[in-house]
């Protein structure tokens, strides 16, 4: 068990971060090169002002008409994404690992708060799953990969939650937690979790087209 722990904590962590960072850079560069090679005109329409206008509108809860039409989903989506990103970054035990390895540390969430946020993320995954199954227009466009990425996103939180509360086999869950976190990191650039990378660009482009050319709102 110790060897396994050393492996996921050491080489595999390096690999996961390597794939995440390297893969993300590769995907973004590839996309920008494609723009450069085939759709250079896009640059000429991009506007910082309208890109940010659009991004900020879509980052503000209920700022878009569609968010107001789907109130529950809006609350769940914002809570889910905030929890998904902030919890792992601001978790005390994660920051301790950074400190142990690199001497870096930063402000952390109280454990109780992190625990609640974890539950919110897990519940959010459950909501998305039910929505996918129950809502016909969502189910119609659902493929196996949609369930897979949902599972990839849920796994680190489920295992982390169980490990923190030391339910079931703590050691195994702890290792599974690290492993599932690494799977998620590595999966971001190469699955549709990559919307994390691309969304600012698609949003910025549509924002620029609507603001600069169409003189209309895109929210």
């Amino acid at each position, binding site marked *: 068990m110790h060897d396994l722990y050393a492996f996921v904590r050491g080489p595999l962590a390096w690999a996961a971060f390597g794939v995440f960072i390297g893969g993300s850079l590769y995907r973004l560069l590839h996309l920008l090169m494609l723009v450069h090679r085939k759709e250079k005109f*896009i640059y000429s329409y991009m506007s910082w002002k309208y890109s940010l206008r659009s991004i900020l509108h879509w980052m503000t809860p209920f700022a878009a008409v569609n968010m107001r039409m789907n109130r529950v989903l809006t609350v769940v989506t914002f809570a889910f994404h905030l929890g998904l990103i902030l919890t792992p970054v601001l978790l005390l035990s994660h920051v301790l690992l950074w400190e142990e390895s690199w001497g870096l540390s930063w402000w952390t969430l109280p454990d109780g708060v992190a625990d609640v946020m974890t539950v919110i993320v897990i519940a959010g995954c459950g909501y998305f799953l039910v929505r996918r199954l129950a809502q016909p227009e969502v189910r119609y466009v659902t493929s196996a990969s949609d369930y897979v990425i949902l599972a990839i996103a849920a796994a680190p939180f489920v295992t982390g939650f169980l490990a923190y509360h030391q339910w079931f086999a703590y050691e195994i869950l702890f290792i599974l937690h690290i492993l599932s976190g690494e799977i998620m990191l590595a999966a971001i650039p190469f699955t549709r979790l990559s919307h994390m990378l691309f969304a600012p660009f698609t949003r910025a482009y549509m924002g620029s087209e609507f603001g600069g050319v169409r003189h209309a709102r*895109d929210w």
Partner: protein
Amino acid sequence: MTESASKDKSKQLDEGLERGMAALTEAKIEKAINRVLTGETGARLKAYVETCIHCGLCSEACHYFLSHDRDPRYSPVGKVKQTLWEMLKKRGRVSPEFIKQARLISSTQCNLCKRCAMYCPFGIDVAYLMLVVRRICHLLGVTPRYIQDTAHSHSVNMNQMWVKEDEWIDTLQWQEDEARGDLPNLRIPLEKEGAEIMYSVIGPEPKFQAQLIYQAAVIMNVAGLDWTMPATPGWDNSDMAMFTGDNELMGRLKRVHFETAMRLKVKKIVMGECGHAFRSVYDVGNRWLGWRMPPIPIVHAIDFYYDLLKTGRLKVAKKFEEPVTLHDPCNVVRGGGLADKARYVVNALCENFIEMHPNREHNICCCAGGGVINAGPPYKMVRIEGNRVKAEQLFAVKAKGATVLITPCHNCHSGLEDINHHYHIGFEIKFLGDILYEVIEKPAG
């Protein structure tokens, strides 16, 4: 569920699709799809397909989806699934029947209105994706017959309606004659080099709505403007090629149009109340020719009327009394930001303006645009049944007292006429120009 919903809807055979499909082989299809998906498209297609999280949130935007009781096959992403995703997944190895269905979905079940782009959290442009599908179908020669016929006319005559050069000139002179009943000294100046304005219209105006040219001539003359119309091909600003996927023809059309304005050395092109033509000259066609924005200023009728009223070049004698409502056309409001100016004009001309809801960028489409009405009679009921929500929206504003429906777009006009008639809504439908012509101060004739 995999079968397209359009199959049971359009029982009338469309020769353009049937014959096009009969000439296809799997090899041809694969080649055309790959030409477009790997050759002609780039980062946008890739980013849109890979960013889409399959959340279905675009559905709420689509009038077809809402009108078909939320049938998922009609949601924007549902249409992408049935067309582009399949083509990508199978790397172009799809059947001729699939291509026909893809054509029906992209060309008769989507108006390219881009409302869904405002409902997608990522701003994915499904209209663009539908245009990619249309492009593939065009390369494969599978196009609804009626719209292909208009494209043929574009190709031969540089106008949409098989109007010959002499017929065009005749029509203008005839309207000049007629309009002299209003203003004895009225002119429709042809080929006046160095005029400030070139006035351009769509093919159907000389073909069967010549009174619109009459009205425009009266407005120009009353306002005392320095204007002209070309006597050569290039007068038509419309563009069905943009909707069939024939980008090369679209480029030819726009080039002739812009070059005609250049030849006449005018300062700007003022265009009649047409939405799709605005999209073609302001957004799509100019880009195909390499112009970031149009090479010569394009002024849509709404903007033009706004300016004339605001500066006092036209004065309102007596406001239009009947209560009016306004349908915002996608191409000039969501596509050109003219919502406020349209309201200024309506309020300047009419006593009583009642908003319909939703409105402005969020208005519900007419279901005629994007070339759908031009796909012809076989799809009339597809349009009408596919836009029940428009009827509901119109009934609601009628209940608030509106009796006249204004829409400054030809396609909206025709599409709304059909909806108005089929659902017995009882609106009188007008262009802004109809009312403007009626209410302005004219010199005593």
